[in-house]
């Protein structure tokens, strides 16, 4: 793989912004490097990464091992903390100098604030939260992003302005496995002398325990609605979730009836859940709820009403009493779960 680098012959470059914070949970930069390599083949480009911060050599090494052929590094104590304003200014200067064809940024909280500012300063186009990137037959980046709460997909292009920019959600692409033999060109740059004073200053940053993100990070969610019937019956879902080391989710009417707390609400603007397995008990399927679960791999819905919207959206639709089914599942799991 390291031999196929077309350093000397590349006519374009595809850049990936190195977002290394939370490195072990957040692999989006690596995922983008992987995709960038595939796109690069189609337009004869070289894949570069940018890394800003202080004491960043570890990440530089990682990015090379995961597909970057060239890395632009800005390493200085003055920029050791992420700062949208400052980093955007630095990125814009770099881009104006080297003129990449495409710039990709992971759609982390930082990326979603940083990329728009870079795009605006360069007066170029940016597509947010892409779930797909490709090169079309005209050699242009085809950006696929969800629209209208995830119910629809839009294909977007930036026909004229450059660079073509996109932010991409974590989990859309798979990273290239770590290649110890990979080599790459490291370009170390120094901080411009006229760096402006930061207008936004970080006073403190505490790493949050995973509590806040329980639902968003959960692999298994057992979700219940009004169809469970009562608070007592709703509690059976907690037992089911516990057996599978999953989380409990709830619809708005359930939170209202106080059978579950506000944190369990599935169907809140911006809280997208992406479990591998979702059980949906006694939920009819109001759009705000169903729009929030579009990323699920396997949905098993249980409802007495075979025509509820939720039943149509699921992989498995069980027409039965929600509570009875929950209890039967608990019994079965207790019997057959090993270890």
């Amino acid at each position, binding site marked *: 793989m390291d031999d196929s680098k077309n350093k000397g012959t590349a006519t374009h470059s595809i850049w990936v912004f190195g977002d290394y914070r939370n490195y072990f949970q957040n692999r989006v930069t690596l995922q983008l490097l992987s995709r960038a390599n595939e796109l690069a083949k189609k337009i004869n480009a070289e894949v570069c990464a940018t890394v800003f911060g202080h004491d960043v050599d570890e990440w530089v090494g990682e990015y090379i091992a995961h597909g970057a052929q060239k890395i632009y590094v800005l390493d200085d104590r003055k920029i050791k903390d992420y700062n949208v304003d400052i980093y955007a200014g630095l990125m814009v200067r770099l881009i104006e100098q080297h003129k990449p064809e495409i710039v990709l940024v992971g759609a982390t909280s930082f990326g979603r604030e940083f990329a728009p500012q870079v795009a605006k300063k360069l007066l170029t186009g940016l597509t947010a939260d892409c779930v797909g990137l490709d090169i079309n037959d005209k050699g242009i980046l085809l950006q696929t992003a969800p629209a209208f709460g995830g119910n629809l997909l839009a294909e977007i292009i930036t026909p004229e302005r450059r660079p073509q920019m996109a932010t991409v959600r974590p989990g859309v692409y798979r990273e290239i496995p770590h290649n110890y033999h990979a080599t790459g060109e490291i370009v170390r740059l120094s901080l411009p002398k006229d760096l402006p004073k930061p207008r936004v200053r970080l006073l403190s940053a505490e790493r949050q325990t995973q509590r806040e993100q329980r639902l968003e990070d959960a692999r298994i969610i057992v979700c219940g609605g009004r169809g469970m019937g009562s608070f007592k019956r709703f509690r059976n879902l907690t037992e089911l979730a516990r057996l599978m080391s999953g989380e409990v989710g709830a619809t*708005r009417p359930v939170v209202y*009836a106080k059978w579950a707390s506000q944190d369990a609400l599935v169907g809140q603007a911006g809280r997208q859940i992406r479990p591998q397995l979702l059980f949906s008990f006694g939920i009819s399927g109001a759009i705000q709820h169903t729009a929030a679960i579009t990323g699920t791999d396997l949905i098993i819905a249980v409802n007495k*009403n075979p025509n509820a919207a939720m039943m149509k959206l699921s992989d498995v639709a069980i027409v039965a009493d929600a509570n009875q089914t929950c209890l039967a599942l608990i019994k079965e799991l207790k019997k057959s779960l090993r270890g």
Partner: protein
Amino acid sequence: MYRLEHEGGVSLDFYPCMKHKVIRKTVREFAEIEIGPIAHDIDQEARFPWEVIEKMRPMHFFGLQVPKEYGGADLDSISYAIVIEELSRVCAAIGLCVTVHNSVGLYPILKFGTEEQKRRFVPLLASGEIIGAFCITEANAGSDAGGVETHAVKDGNHYIVNGTKIFVTNGAICGAPLIFAVTNAKNSKKAASVFIVEKTTPGYSVGEIEDLCGMRANPVSSLFLEDCRVPEENLLMNLGDGLKIVLITLDTGRIGIAAQALGIAQAAFEASVRYSKERQQFRQPIGSFQTIQNMLADMATEIDAVRLLLYRACAYKDAGVTFSTEAAMAKLSCSTVASRVTSQAVQIHGGYGYSKEYDVERYFRDAKVTEIYEGTSEVQRMVIARAVLTKPS
């Protein structure tokens, strides 16, 4: 959603105005979020949801057409009808509480009261601190208001009121209901008057809450008045003006009830449309069958037609012209349509429509009483027939 302007007459303009759209959306959002999730349960348990009332007070739900100087929202009548309709669409029992409070509990004091009476009672009612009601019906006096036996006898500067009122909407929660009582039994004309009787009056007590078919979250009850000493300052207008007050008040009350019935019909209709799209039989949605389509078409048309009748009555009222017949027509038609549409809605839902798991059976139960209270449909027809026959031909 049609604005009918009135400048020196009543001109028609059917295009919805922005204010009415926004008021509708605002009330709908509030009702769906705050009342929606509990509507089923409070009907089942026959529980009056004070926690929601708390939230409704600062929003002026209890002073909808009260002038600003008394702390009200000063809404026009179409806006008022929209508010009641949207509340009733989610929970008819709460819509009932609010319309009875506004139209018959508060309005008479505003219209007929002295400055002193208005000052004493209107702000408290408008803020929702006390809930209003109007008590006419008795065991022997339903449609025949002349059969009322509750009586008030002068004693110094008080009146002693005795009697029992039944089926009082908001009965168990009202703070200063208006009581329709006979005040001149000796006179063969049997004149009646209206008194504001505060619940703190010794001798005033509330009977058991009625176990009703529908509107179950509304605490409808009897009121017992045993030797209640009511100060003469609480007499509304003059002795003998009772019937006049009642007739004029009921015109306004009918607009509220018509709006309530409309809301119920609208809810049942929307549920039917949704169900027709979802429910599949014979491998297609039932909405593709002509029978169902005919039903939905008729429902849509009827609801729209009676909506216009309602808004016309509202426009006439705001224009200051007499609107008794128009109000009667609105009440009659809206309640009839509500009964018909809710019955069809249950039919469209089939077996599920008969189950408490769906809301349509509640709409069906709630709708029926709109044909009965505040003047039965038969009484409304009397009013309309009289108007028709007295017009010179």
